[in-house]
């Protein structure tokens, strides 16, 4: 019964308001929706976290297994990020192999973590060239109400912060598990900030109706010291260099605000 195409009337209203500096849900142009973070809810997983960004809800589970390294990086552990847009999250999601949207989501979240060298993959080697730890980050979208990228990236970071690895020692080529756990060492805390462009105006954290009215989006991943480590533009529209530079400044500020919610320094 739910149909998803943006009603033109609504899109028009969204654009009109934004031209005057206001959003349909009362937010300022640079405001995020309310963020709720809960960690450790899936004990089976080595780490887990659920983020609610407004009504968007994403669950991330981290599993650590032992495996072989890639042949071109024999002395590094492996990080792999996967995203599932499960059908229950939205009437537009269909069951089946990952489509281009879930692949883009996974790769953008991956880029933020990988490029910032958040996970010290050289620390994840058990036997050089033969056995390493493989960190699986699985992003599970539970409810889609806009801005899946930021919610997923935030949940992924919170899940990694929550992740524990078992203690082990290598004896006679065999990995023996020892009692106790230690937290997964993390070197950075990348945060993704996504902008939507509607009628030449940039807004932060678009919700579903704004996403349906936008002509382009821009995501920036910011490291803890303010450097930009990943970017992704999406949608058929365009940005001017001015807009991109302006966005990068806002992204720095918003990233710091979001990071403070999960990383207590």
């Amino acid at each position, binding site marked *: *019964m739910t149909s998803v195409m943006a*009603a033109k*009337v609504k*899109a028009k209203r969204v654009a009109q*308001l934004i031209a005057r500096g206001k959003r*349909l849900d009362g937010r300022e142009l640079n405001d995020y929706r309310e963020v709720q973070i809960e960690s450790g809810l899936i004990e089976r997983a080595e780490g887990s976290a659920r983020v609610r960004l407004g009504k968007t809800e994403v669950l991330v589970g981290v599993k650590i297994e032992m495996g072989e390294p890639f042949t071109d990086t024999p002395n590094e552990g492996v990080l792999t990020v996967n995203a599932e847009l499960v059908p229950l999250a939205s009437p537009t999601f269909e069951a089946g192999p990952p489509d281009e949207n879930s692949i883009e989501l996974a790769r953008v979240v991956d880029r933020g973590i990988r490029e910032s060298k958040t996970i010290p993959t050289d620390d994840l080697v058990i036997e050089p060239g033969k056995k390493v730890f493989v960190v699986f980050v699985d992003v599970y979208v539970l409810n889609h109400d806009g801005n899946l990228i930021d919610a997923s990236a935030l949940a992924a970071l919170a899940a990694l912060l929550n992740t524990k690895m078992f203690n082990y020692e290598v004896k006679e080529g065999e990995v023996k598990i020892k009692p106790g756990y230690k937290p997964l060492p993390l070197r950075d805390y990348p945060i993704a900030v996504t902008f939507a462009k509607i009628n030449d105006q940039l807004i932060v954290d678009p919700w579903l109706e704004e996403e349906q009215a936008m002509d382009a989006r821009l995501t920036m991943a910011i490291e803890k010291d303010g450097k930009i480590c990943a970017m992704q533009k999406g949608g058929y529209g365009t940005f001017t260099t001015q807009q991109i530079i302006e966005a990068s400044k806002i992204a720095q500020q918003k990233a710091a605000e979001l990071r403070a919610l999960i990383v207590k320094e």
Partner: protein
Amino acid sequence: MPVFHEKRQLVTPGDLLAENDYIHGENTYKENGKIYATRVGLFNHDDKRIFVVALKSFYVPMVGDTVIGKVLEVTLGGWIVDIRAPYVAMLRASDALERPVRPQKDDLPALFDVGDMMIAKIVAYDRTRDPLLTVLERGLGKVTRGQIIEITPTKIPRVIGKKGSMITMIKNETGCQIAIGQNGRIAIMGKTPEDERSAIMAIRMIEQEAHTTGLTDRVTEMLRKEKSEKSTKEVVENVPKET
């Protein structure tokens, strides 16, 4: 005549409501002389009938209902319209144009394009085919401005109020034109987005607090407070308010 629950007690699907000589009404079914609930809701009965007032149900098309629909597709002969029901509806060109349709000359998308919203009436519906709409009556047609919100269809009578008292009050207090679809969609067209926002707040308040008494008064009070607060704040556009 045994009934097994108090009036207005919450019942769940499969709950045994009564036996034998009653007629099974809304949201119930009868099997082997026993009447059971089919939905979560409040039990009620009179001398003859057992029924349940469902707390949540979706809109099922009924001939004669005014609905607000969204165009999904333009076809050769008309439009396919989403009316937030288990079935999509059809609007034939002949029910949208007052004169005979000329397929070569008439530009259907110009009339209603994909994504357009319309206020329409259901003229036909049965189990074998999708509901048929018309827009050829007064008050029907394309929605060109304003906002459209969705609420649970069961709350629509509440938004209308007894003899339309609630909706008339909201229209007066906000100066908005409001069209109500039985399918749970409401179109609000005001002079400013702020007026529309007030009307929406009023409707959401009704949706949340429908169980309380004195609701009309409280909604009125809320709207008046909004209005006075707005006039003391800096407003982007100053529009003279009609009394």
